[in-house]
Each structure stands twice: as structure tokens, then as C-alpha cells.
């Protein structure tokens, strides 16, 4: 995944915005009322500016790296990857244990004469997560807790 926009380009975002703003003002053409007006204006100067931004931004000046810098970078990368791998493996082991218990419990249940739970499992239900289930955020909401909430 390449993202050349992570490194700061020569054109700053402020400079680009000014360029585009000027181009937007300049794009005249016939007003919407006239008979020959086209909703998508071909002579829009903004297109030239966008083309310049997308395909003709100058190559960024890349930072010079010494051998020590490279070693440092590689060590950090490896440490991070190791950390992520440990997290992933821990998660995997937890899930495996949970699955084993789930499977074991279900098999035990099947042996029982009444298959009520399995019938419930195979019922025609559209099971979706609740619509108002909030994905946790780092900070609490600005408006606080809504006591007068009603699910429409």
C-alpha cells in the first residue's frame, strides 16, 4: 500500500486550497438560466488544477538515512510486528478454547432426548445485532446520556 501523501509534498495543503479557490471563482461560463447552459461545465479550470495535484506533484525530498537509522527502523518494525503477532496468537488461542467449549456443549446437548435448543437454533429468524448498540469511543459523548431516548 503506497501512500506518497504521508510525506509532506512541496505544495502545502494551504497553497493547493488557495489555487483551487481561485480557479473555482474564475470558472465563469453561462449562468444556469441561459438556454445553452450545461450542468457539467467542460471548461472548468478546477480540472486542470486537480490534474496537476494528482499527477504532477513534485517528488518529495526523502530523508537521508544512515546505516544506524536503518538498523533502528528495522528493529522497531520487527518489535512492532512481534507485538502484533503475540496479540494475534493470544486472541486465536482464546477463540479456539471458546469454540472447543461451544462445540462440546452442543454435542452434549444433542445427546439429550429433547432437541429444543437445536430447534430454536434452526428457526427462521433474521438475527442481526441491535441497531442502537454503541461502538465504544475514547471519550464520552458531548451531549451526555439521553434519558428521553425512544427507539423509532
Amino acid at each position, binding site marked *: *500500500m*503506497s*501512500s*506518497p*501523501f*504521508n510525506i509532506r509534498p512541496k505544495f502545502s495543503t494551504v497553497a493547493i*486550497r488557495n489555487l*483551487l*479557490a481561485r480557479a*473555482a471563482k474564475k*470558472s465563469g461560463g453561462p449562468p444556469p438560466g441561459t438556454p445553452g447552459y450545461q450542468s*457539467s*461545465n*467542460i471548461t*472548468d479550470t*478546477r*480540472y486542470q488544477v*486537480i*490534474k496537476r*495535484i*494528482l499527477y504532477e506533484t513534485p*517528488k*518529495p525530498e*526523502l*530523508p*537521508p*538515512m544512515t546505516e544506524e537509522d*536503518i538498523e533502528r*527502523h*528495522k528493529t522497531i*518494525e520487527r518489535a*512492532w510486528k512481534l507485538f502484533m503477532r503475540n496479540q494475534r496468537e493470544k*486472541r*486465536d488461542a482464546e*477463540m*479456539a478454547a*471458546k*469454540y*472447543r467449549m*461451544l*462445540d462440546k456443549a*452442543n*454435542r452434549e446437548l*444433542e445427546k439429550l432426548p429433547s432437541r429444543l435448543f*437445536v430447534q430454536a*437454533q*434452526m428457526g*427462521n*429468524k*433474521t*438475527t*442481526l*445485532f441491535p*441497531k442502537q*448498540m454503541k*461502538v*465504544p*469511543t*475514547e471519550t464520552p459523548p458531548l451531549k451526555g446520556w439521553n434519558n428521553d431516548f425512544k427507539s423509532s
Partner: protein
Amino acid sequence: KQFHLYKHFHTFSVAHYEPHHSHIPQKPANLPNSLDFYPGRSSMLRMEEYHHSTLADDLMILTYRDPEAEQKFIDKRKKKYLPLRKSVLTMDTNPYAKNRPRPKPRGNKNVGPVPPRQSHRTAPELVKIVVHCMMKQSLLSKQHLLSGIMALQCITSERPTIVYSRTDVSRWKLRKGMPIGCKVHIQGPPMYTFLDKLTEIVLPRLREWQGVSISSGDQNGNITMGFPPSALSLFPDIESNYDMFPMMTGFHVVFHTTAYTDYEGRALLSGFQIPFTPGKKINRTF
């Protein structure tokens, strides 16, 4: 003066060995002093953490099938994608056929996936999102594509690729090979940030929109939804620079999941707070 020894030096012909089929080509480690360098995630991914902490467990339980139901499901899928030769039907028991790729089905049909035996890893996960934008105005002038490319790049933070037409339609003055739109595939951190923006900012502000159609899906767990041009202006990346976009276009978003049924794919996406319209009851396919 000593070089005359090398006059009759034969260039050895090195035997070219094909890489083994199990060799996974590794991407070379990119360093910051190269343009290709991707620094990795720059912040906590709220949606990913939520999936791992909350959704994964619940989805494992929701998508669990008892052994009988599992066998029925796999057999049904195998039957749908029947193989060309009858000998393939005994492939699972034939020890010589182990690790062979599954042959094509008969009848010139598309090959469809047959789900594996369930385990703790077969709970559905979101793999990638594809954002696709088709611009009819690009038939008049190719520069209208630029607006779409810039818009998708702003939304997803990845550079889109151009989509070319595959057929001729004289009615619309369309010829084969004309650039007609743009698409971008996003995985990992950009995908989760895009999903976050979508569910927190864009979807709540869509006008007269009740939710994704409950019948949406490609029968294999990948759900698609479409947006009108007004939705583009709701993204914070575009809202701030609204005047700089010459053309507002609608777009499609495809959620690619590891689910093998639409039901499971929908369950996963509803966990990420994507609402579905309460249509007619869709049976859980076993």
C-alpha cells in the same frame, strides 16, 4: 597481463528453478527513504478493536452449526457447484487426491466457493471494502473522471484505479475500452477508518434512507450498497473543501467478508452498526 587466462572462461548456465508452489513471495521491507514506504497504522482502529473484543465471540456463536447441519450445508453447496467428473465426488475419501485443487464444475458455470469445516477461524470477518464510482459524464469528456478520482482518494486515502468499459452500447455512445469510472480497494487501517466515517457521520445524515436492502448480497456473504451524489458531500474530507470538486457523483460500496452466506455477512455488518431495512424474513440458509 593476467587476463588471458579468462579468455576461455565459459559462462555457466545456471539451472532455473521454478519457485515451489508453497513459496509465498514476501514484499521487500520498505524503508522510509523510498517512495513506496507505508508507515502502517497511525492511530487506534476503533472498529477493528470492537470487532476483536465484542463482535468476534458473538459471531462465532451465531454462525455455529451443529455437525448435522454443517454437513447438510456443505453438501448443498457441493451439489450447487457439481464437478465435471463423477470421480471427484469421492475426492474427500481418496487419499491420492489430497491437496489437489477442486476441478471446475460442469455446465460452463462460474466456480463457487465450498465452505470449509467450521472452526474458531471461520467466523465472518471484514476483509476489504471496494468503493466504485461510475461517471456517465466521462463519455462527453475524460476530464470528468478527475473529479471522481480526487473524491475517492479523499474519502479512502488510497489512489483509485480507472475502470474501462467491457462492452459496446451504441445507445449511450459507449465503446469497449473507454474509461468510464474509478474504483479503489481498501484493506486494513484505511478500511476501518472509512467504515468508521461511514457509520458515524455519513449514514446517520442520509436523507430518506431506511437502511441497506435486506436482500442485498451475492449469495456468498459480500454485501453492496449504493449512495446518491448528495452522500459524497457528507464526508468530512469533502465537506471542508466542497467548492473544489467540480462534480458530485454517487458511488457503490462493496463489503467483502469471509462469510459464506449473506445471512452471516449481514450479521457481521449489522455489528458494525450498518442498518438493514426490515423487509420480508430472509431464512437462514443452512
